[in-house]
Structure formats: structure tokens, C-alpha cells
């Protein structure tokens, strides 16, 4: 089964992770621009971060036969940082037209402040202008309220709901999201967020429509194999193969293909540089 991990921060991961992911059947990934664990204090840092998501990281991924796409944005946490917020959003038009950018994201709420309202809305407008879908992070704290506010803001913005992926859902937020036209992402985590068995239960209850699963693996305690591990648990629990494939392949393909930039036809070439490149050589 082909597997797509539509949310994973590979910049924080090792080549051993890439090897394990490829061996587990992951062939396509999306890396959203996000918070790096401590505040960045210069706008220029984001230029290099975006450059890395459009250059170095897709190259690393290609060495393991994995297609790498990204979403770019000012993230919700740093939307509150007056040193950089305006400057980072001003950078975005230069980057959002590029090949490999399949959505604006992660945008959304962290503490649900007025600054977050402002940059969430402004970046939705940018997404409209560039014909891109939007990837919306939902907060860890006050999650239900944050999800409600996210859905309300999308509606007020007149942004097409079928082009919005609301991420990091739980049992409590999922029904709210499915009641709209938005897609519902689930981040399968070792401890927090969602786990494999709970995810399987949600699939049995709600089916596969607009349902998406990701690892959201990053620099914290997380696991880049959580999508294939969720596939295994769903199988154990007797969920049909075609339903599983809809969730871990067809749905993320359909969602991100709305960007017009999800080019899956040309496989990444590893033959030319397999031996010679600076990543795999070790």
C-alpha cells in the first residue's frame, strides 16, 4: 500500500528516519513550515528556512525515494512576535508561487490572541490569491474553542471549506470539522494528541470521507512511522483495505492536488546520485 504522510517536520529528523519511512512504504510527504522550538528573532531566518524546505529537504527526501512537498506560512506561535510577524508575511508572496508549495500553513491559533486572528486571516487571503489550500493547526490548549474559532474564521473569510485541512483533531473536535466542508487531519503521537487505536475507532465511527492521518513528527517525542503503524492497527481491527487506502493515500492526494502542484507523475531520481551524494555517502 502506498502511504502519504501529509504532515511531518523532516528538517528535525535523521536519514535513519528517511530509511525507515521508505522501508515502511511512505512515498510522499508534506512538510509544513512551523515553530522550531524556540523563537526566531530575525525575518531573514525564515528566508533560509523556506529555502531549506524548497531545496535541501526535498533533495534529502529524494535520496530515499520519497517525494517532498511543503506548506509555507508564519506559524500561529510566532504570529505573536512583533519582531518578525509582519516581515515574514511580507516575504510569503515571493515563495508561495513556487513549485513544491502545496498549501499555506501551518496557520491557525496557538493562544487565540488578536495578533493570531490578524495573521490567520491575512494568510488565508494570501492562499486565495495564490490558489493554494490552507493547512490549519489547532491549538494544544483550549482546543475545542480554538477549533470553533478556526472554523468560524474560515467561514467569515469566505474561504472554500473543501480547500481547508483542520489538523490535530481529537474525538471532541472531529464532529465539528466534519459538520463543515473542511478536511480533518489527525496527528498520531506516542503520548499526546491521537493514538493508533483511538484513530481506528474514529474511522469505524465516521468512515473515511475527508479523514486524514499524519505523524506530525518533529523535534519532540514523536514517531515518523505513525502513519504505517496506524495502517497496521486499522488492519488488525478489521477495517477494509480500500477504506485504509482512502485515508492514507487518496485523501491527502486529493486535498493537496487542489494546489495544482502535487506532481506525482515523475518519480524522484535516485539512480544518478545514489552513491555519490553527500547525504547517503555517510
Amino acid at each position: 500500500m502506498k502511504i502519504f504522510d501529509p504532515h511531518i517536520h523532516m528538517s528535525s529528523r535523521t536519514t535513519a528516519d528517511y530509511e525507515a519511512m521508505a522501508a515502511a512504504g511512505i512515498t510522499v510527504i508534506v512538510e509544513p513550515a512551523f515553530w522550531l522550538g524556540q523563537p526566531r528573532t530575525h525575518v531573514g531566518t525564515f528566508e533560509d528556512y523556506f529555502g531549506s524546505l524548497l531545496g535541501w529537504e526535498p533533495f534529502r527526501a529524494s535520496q530515499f525515494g520519497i517525494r517532498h512537498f511543503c506548506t509555507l506560512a508564519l506559524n500561529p506561535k510566532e504570529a505573536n512576535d512583533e519582531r518578525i510577524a509582519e516581515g515574514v508575511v511580507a516575504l510569503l508572496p515571493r515563495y508561495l508561487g513556487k513549485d513544491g508549495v502545496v498549501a499555506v500553513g501551518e496557520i491557525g491559533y496557538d493562544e487565540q490572541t488578536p495578533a493570531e486572528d490578524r495573521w490567520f486571516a491575512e494568510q488565508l487571503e494570501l492562499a486565495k490569491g495564490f490558489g493554494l489550500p490552507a493547512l490549519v493547526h489547532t491549538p494544544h490548549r483550549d482546543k475545542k474553542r480554538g477549533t470553533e474559532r478556526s472554523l468560524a474564521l474560515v467561514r467569515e473569510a469566505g474561504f472554500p471549506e473543501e480547500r481547508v485541512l483542520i489538523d490535530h483533531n481529537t474525538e471532541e473536535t472531529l464532529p465539528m470539522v466534519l459538520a463543515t466542508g473542511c478536511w480533518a487531519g489527525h496527528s498520531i503521537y506516542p503520548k499526546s494528541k491521537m493514538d493508533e487505536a483511538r484513530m481506528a475507532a474514529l474511522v469505524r465511527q465516521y468512515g473515511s470521507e475527508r479523514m486524514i492521518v499524519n505523524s506530525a513528527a518533529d523535534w519532540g517525542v514523536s514517531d515518523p512511522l505513525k502513519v504505517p503503524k496506524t495502517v497496521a492497527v486499522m488492519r488488525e481491527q478489521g477495517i477494509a483495505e480500500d477504506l485504509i487506502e482512502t485515508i492514507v493515500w487518496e485523501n491527502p492526494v486529493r486535498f493537496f492536488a487542489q494546489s495544482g502542484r502535487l506532481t506525482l507523475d515523475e518519480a524522484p531520481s535516485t539512480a544518478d546520485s545514489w552513491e555519490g551524494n553527500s547525504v547517503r555517502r555517510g
Partner: protein
Amino acid sequence: MSTAAPALAALLAARRSDLAGTILTESTVDAATPFDPLRFEALFGAAGRRFGTIVLGGEATVSDSTAPSWSIATWGLDELARALLIVAGISRIAAADQVTWLDGLHRAGAMRERQAILRCLALLPDPARFVPIALDACRASTQPVFEAIACENPYPASYFPETSFNHMVLKAVFTEVALARILGLATRRSTELARMAADYASERTAAGRSVPADLALVMSR
């Protein structure tokens, strides 16, 4: 406008007559329209999905007014389109601002955008001005970016200082790039390059590893 622009435009038109005809106008490079840098960058960025990355192959060559022609068979169609945009577009930028303009385009460039910039440096006016961009790419570990400047490209042999050229050659050996892909290598062989190659061979031998056969190509002057 560079003498190379019509040649690149013809190569592109031969492959994608449907898109090649309008790319200069749409990107505002066409002299009939006011130049709009953001509009230019949007077209420059979109070239990959519009043209695809199929390799040109065959007999495609290009030349400028000073250099003999060289093969661009390894360029992707997207790189050809982007090279055309740069070669034509730079003439819309004041001469004094051209380095800053291209540096900004390179710095903000996605991987294949950078490759296209590097591949056409030798076709730009006063190419020696762009050495810092080329050296930046030589430091990259993103192998396709390194190969875009080091391989099938006349720029390093023509414009690199000796130390930079030598390190590029050693990096090519180190990353197992065939030295035959470095244009003008024979004209840049030197005592110092031979010494560096010999030292590397010695290091490999001491480590119990094989010595890359290509090192012999530069071990003597």
C-alpha cells in the same frame, strides 16, 4: 539582450511551442511591457509545473559571443525556460543592480530554480560579476545544485579563482562525480591541483579505501 536569448527561445519553442511563445511577454521581460519583478518571479517559480523537468537530451547546444558552444543536453525543460527568463530578464535591470537582482533570485530560489540560474551564468553580461553566487553553490551539499555549477558548465573553468576551482574538482571526486563532466578541466590543471589530488589519494590509501580512478586525470599537470 544577450545573444543567447534567441537560441534558448528557439530550443524551448522546438519543444513546447504552446508555452514558449508567450513566456517572455507574460513574465514582463518583453520590452513592450513595464518590467514587474514580482510578476517575473511568479512565472520563474511556476516554470517547473508548466514545462516539466524532462531532460532536453540530443544535440541541444548553446553559446555566447565569447565562448565556444557547449552541450546543454542535461538541462531540464524547466531549467531551459528559467534560463531564458534570466538571460532575457537581466537586460531589463539596470547594469549596476544586476548582481543584487540575481543574488536575490538565487537566495530565494527553490532547488531547481537555483540550478537554472547556475547553468546560465556564462550567458549573462559580464559573467565574472557572478562568481560569489557560483561559489555559494559550490559549498552546497544539495548535490543537484553543486552539479549545476560544476558539471556541463563552462563557467568555473572560465571565471573561478584557482583555489575555488581546485576545491570544486576535489568535491566532485569526493561526491563521485565523473571529472569528464567538468568543462575546461584540462585548461585548469595545475601543480597545486595535482598536489591536492595526490594528497587525497594518499588519504584514501592510508584509510584502506580504494583510490577513485578519476584522480589520475588531475594528479599530473
